[in-house]
């Protein structure tokens, strides 16, 4: 008999994600926090020299809001271990890496979808509330890049969170590690000052990617994306290897 099509696994993981309340709490709060912060930031900024700077300002809420994606991604994995659900899940899908890929794709896709809606809301806020010479045009490449970068970063935060859950298995440990890596440590090292500390700050997967680094030390955006992507990839591979090797 042929293998189960990957689409079936994706449907299964989507059913799991949508059928628990935590997902909807995180989703609702994420939309609320980032959307409201975007409008507030845009409304309190009278004007900006360039459209992408106005948009960047409106995206400020992502700096905190993505913590909800960290929680969502971590819980998608750790509640399976906490409840014993993982016994049933791995009996149904004994190819463990395949299961982790499906879960990661579903969580990352949900993060991307929500963030895509939010960047449109935030861009509209900037366009409506912030005075920019020439206005905020949706076809401006600089604006599009800023928005796209944020959506991609949110997807990678989802991947990193699922991966942390797979490595650490405990909700408290994984959430703590996720918040520390993305939110607490980058500004902490930035504040510590000094050459080494600021390098470390840049090397951590901060939630805001690029020059406007939300209290952390800024980097050019390609570097920031590469760092976040590398963290997500390395931790994810570690999670897959550990999932394959360890008993449950």
């Amino acid at each position, binding site marked *: 008999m042929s293998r189960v099509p990957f689409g079936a696994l994706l449907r299964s993981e989507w059913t799991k994600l949508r059928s628990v309340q935590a997902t909807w709490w995180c989703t609702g709060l994420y939309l609320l926090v980032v959307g409201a912060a975007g409008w507030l930031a845009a409304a309190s900024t009278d004007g900006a020299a360039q459209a992408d700077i106005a948009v960047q300002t409106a995206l400020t809420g992502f700096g905190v809001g993505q913590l909800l994606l960290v929680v969502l991604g971590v819980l998608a994995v750790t509640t399976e271990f906490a409840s014993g659900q993982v016994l049933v899940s791995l*009996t149904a*899908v004994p190819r463990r890496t395949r299961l982790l890929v499906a879960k990661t794709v579903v969580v990352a896709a949900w993060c991307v979808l929500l963030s895509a809606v939010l960047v449109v809301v935030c861009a509209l806020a900037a366009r409506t509330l912030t005075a920019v010479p020439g206005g905020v045009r949706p076809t401006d490449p600089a604006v599009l890049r800023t928005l796209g970068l944020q959506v991609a970063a949110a997807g990678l935060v989802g991947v990193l969170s699922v991966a942390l859950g797979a490595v650490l298995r405990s909700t408290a440990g994984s959430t703590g590690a996720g918040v520390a890596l993305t939110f607490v440590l980058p500004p902490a090292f930035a504040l510590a000052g000094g050459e080494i500390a600021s390098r470390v700050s840049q090397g951590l997967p901060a939630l805001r990617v690029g020059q406007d680094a939300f209290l952390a030390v800024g980097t050019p955006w390609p570097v920031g994306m590469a760092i976040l992507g590398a963290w997500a990839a390395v931790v994810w591979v570690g999670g897959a290897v550990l999932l394959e090797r360890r008993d449950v």
Partner: protein
Amino acid sequence: MIELVGLTKAYRTRVAVDDLTVTVEPGRVTGFLGPNGSGKTTTMRCVLGLTRPTSGTARVLGRPYRELARPMRRVGALIDPRARHPGRTAHAHLLALAQSNALPPRRVDHVIEMVGLESVAHERVRGFSLGMGQRLGIAAALLGDPDVLLLDEPVNGLDPEGIRWVRELLRDLADEGRTVLVSSHLMSEMEDTADHLVVLGRGRLLADVPMADLLGAHSAVRVRSPQAPLLASALRRAGGIVELQLDGSLRVEGLDVPRVGDVAFEAGVRLHELTRVTASLEAAYLALTGDDVEYRAVAP
């Protein structure tokens, strides 16, 4: 069919399963017995690929479990009735499982009906009793209409009606030619359900026998006669081991019922009772596992 060859699982401080070689055949209910901590659950987890054996192999339908393409269509398992996300409804739990093996969604409603959980299908499983949890676990095991069933303590927490239901279900599944392996520590339950027994003690195989053989090995004949002393000596001459019971009857081992009747006839002894006494599974089991109980209460 489940084949275990030299299956061993050692943890840092103890050996949970020790060189276990057993074949579980289709078409009959195989009872998996053993005291707490004797390795039943570890064995089942090894079969399902959840736990990696230290050495030896476990195969289901000729292949390692992890290599089955659509495992739920081949093997149904109940490992732990509490192993599920408490915030999910019974229906969503089963739907996610069905989707993961590309099973048609109508199977979900079908198994919910089979186990009698229709009225609570859309409630979160957090509020389920142990018995409802067992029914949901059995529903999950049946979802793919599998050839092989592994059920770890499925009647634990069920009411008498539920126990009878499980017993009949296992019987039907085995009669359809499926392989059914069911663990329990409730001997009386096994006596009514299983055709074959695999008994573990401290991770080692103690017995792999048909139920009837195990019970037969511990059975005897009770015979009552107004001329008991005469009958007793005649039976002893015929090779029986005879014991006078408190109620005046004789307990005879080593001779079957027709032989005891013949001996009495030849000796010209009148009989008032002649019965085959079957040992309870409980007694047979205790005789087997007596030395292998891992956790024993010690009188102070």
